[in-house]
């Protein structure tokens, strides 16, 4: 994929990130999002930048002759990139729709510099929750006895399973990952070497994904 972008493709005015790095970031984000039970921070700016790039490339391609075989190869490349982007966004939407109340609540506890939802996703989540609440009220909650007419209380059970297991690869050396023990075992502390692969619960390494030291596979 690196061949699609030349050396001169850069994004944004303040951040001069080469295009192929953007793509790599998106790919990693996509994989992480697919395998993670929780919703990860939104890579909104990268998505937007990538889409601009795609549009530009499509415009360039219309200038080439149809029989030039590069056209097909580039179209394929664009189709693949589009697939990564749509799959990434689709996965996020599915997670939002499944655990709406939880995600919105989590979002309010976060600082404004580290949003997990993009603006569009935030609006969507709020609308969707309202839709569900209205729907439930109409069909069920209106008709049940008064003490049971609360909607939000049931939503608290719709949370992602943070203890589900995932495969990961350590991108750099990480020391001191604490794996909680249960009744029978004590807490363990593990060191992850660079490029080693592991399978473990999501919860202990959740923050490691955010700072990029770990990649889900």
């Amino acid at each position, binding site marked *: 994929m690196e061949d699609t972008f030349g050396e001169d493709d850069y994004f944004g005015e303040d951040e001069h990130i080469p295009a192929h790095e953007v793509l790599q970031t998106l790919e990693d984000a996509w994989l992480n999002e697919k395998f993670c039970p929780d919703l990860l921070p939104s890579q909104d700016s990268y998505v937007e930048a990538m889409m601009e790039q795609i549009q530009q490339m499509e415009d360039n391609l219309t200038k080439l002759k149809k029989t030039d075989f590069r056209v097909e190869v580039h179209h394929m490349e664009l189709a693949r990139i589009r697939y990564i982007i*749509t799959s990434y*966004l689709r996965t996020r939407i599915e997670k939002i729709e499944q655990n709406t109340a939880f995600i919105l609540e989590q979002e309010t506890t976060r600082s404004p510099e580290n949003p997990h939802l993009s603006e569009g996703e935030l609006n*969507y989540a709020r609308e*969707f929750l309202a839709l*569900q609440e209205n729907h439930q009220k109409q*069909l069920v909650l209106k008709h*049940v006895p008064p003490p049971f007419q609360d909607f939000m209380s049931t939503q608290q059970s719709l949370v992602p399973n943070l203890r589900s297991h995932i495969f990961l690869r350590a991108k750099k050396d990480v020391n001191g990952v604490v794996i909680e023990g249960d009744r029978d075992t004590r807490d363990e502390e593990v060191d992850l070497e660079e490029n080693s692969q592991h399978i473990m619960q999501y919860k202990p390494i959740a923050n490691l994904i955010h700072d990029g030291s770990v990649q889900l596979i």
Partner: protein
Amino acid sequence: MPLTLTQRCCHLLAPLIPFTVVFIHLSDDDGVRQVFEEMRGLYDQNVAAANDSTADPDGTAISSIAIRHAALERNKRCLMAYVFNRSKKLRNMRWQFGSILPPEIKANLCEPEIQWFNSYSKCLARYMKSIGGQGLNLAQDVKPPKSLYVEVRSLIDYGKFELDNGEVVLLKKHSTHLMSRAQCEPLIIQGVLEQINH
């Protein structure tokens, strides 16, 4: 007796259990109504029993109140799960068929569900438009693309299908075509065309 409690709920939820079933069954309005009646009955019993706490020498009333309360909670949760799962299937329909439902599916929905579907459609459309500044249709490119053109076979007599470049293809049952993947993808997802692999 507690054994019959919430059994109606189980009947409600049973059709939803095979998760692979894609289509929506007929909305079980009767079953839902029966559960409401059961809940009302239990609640009334509870209220009566709570008010009548004086007539409870050996404390068995508390436990029956607790049981009824638990049954009521469970009924409520089952009902909400029923509605929630149906709306999830509806949501999948939106992704598969677009914003217009085929009449055979519409016939199985109750009126609030149809309204929910339309509102969801709009909500989703608004979000998709807001992506990346120019909008992105997330219902496309559902599978990793293997080639730009695919060989497809028509499974039904669909009729004429216009391509982007103005050409018209007649999709009659049993005809085979080679078409641009992006253009016939919606038809493949809907089940009108079948992709042929070699």
